[in-house]
């Protein structure tokens, strides 16, 4: 019974991970892509790890460490990426404000 519940939790996590990929593919500019990639993967990864912990309760300590690590590092790396994107945009004359959704792909990468 716990195996069934665990696999269903893993499936829900997989749905979130898939929607992270879809968001990464569909979103219009770098900031929104980073947002889609960060949030959905954090929850999806946590749900997959919870599902595995339901299968093997003796693994839960190490799974907890992995989940906590992802919780701590994912916002930091997304923040560093967003800051890099913001700096690049400012330097290439994109201006400080980005009010429209259409600004994304004109600016040239390095």
């Amino acid at each position, binding site marked *: 019974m716990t195996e069934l519940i665990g696999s269903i939790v893993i499936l829900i996590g997989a749905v*979130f991970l898939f*929607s992270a990929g*879809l*968001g990464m593919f*569909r*979103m*219009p*500019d770098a*900031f*929104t892509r*980073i*947002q*889609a990639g*960060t*949030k*959905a993967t*954090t*929850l999806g990864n946590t749900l997959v790890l919870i599902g595995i912990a339901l299968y093997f309760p003796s693994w839960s*300590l*190490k799974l*907890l*460490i992995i989940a906590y690590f992802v919780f*701590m590092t*994912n*916002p*930091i790396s*997304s*923040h560093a990426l*967003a*800051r890099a994107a*913001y700096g690049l945009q400012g330097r290439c004359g994109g201006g*400080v*404000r*980005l*009010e*429209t*959704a259409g600004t994304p792909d004109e600016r040239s990468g390095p």
Partner: protein
Amino acid sequence: MSSRDVNATPFALRGFVWLWLLLVAIWLAVSSTFAVESVLAGALISAALAAFFARRFDIWGGIRVSPGRVYHFLLYTGAFLRELVHANIAMMRYVYAPRIQIEPGIVTVKTRLKSPIGRLALANSISLTPGSLVLDLEGDEMLVHCLDLRGADPSEVARGMTRGIEAPLEKTFG
């Protein structure tokens, strides 16, 4: 709350002890064994790392532990998890929409938090809450990228972002 008390233990030492305990706990969890050699090696390596980082960065000195703070930290965790699930459902709504209709923009958020670690925790939480991503952190001001500003007042959005998370963090970290 100032991070230095009059009769407190030396600044770096307090940070050292908490960081050491944290690192040893992580070591025990990762190695998942209680063999004497393993625990001893872990304690030594953790002590060296903790001494180095506690002396270099005084961010670790701002951490205090008391039952009230632990209680408020748990409150923060609850609020954070609720926001995380909410953020994901909001994100799914945008991702699976037939046409993505968003109006991204940047707002400035001011925080009441004083300690650097509290600000770090707040910035991390804002990055994981609905439609917002911290771009830059300078003093008590944060630049936050918002996914969708359609028909919303930017200052109202900025206030809504810290609601529910800032208060428990303030009680935990000061």
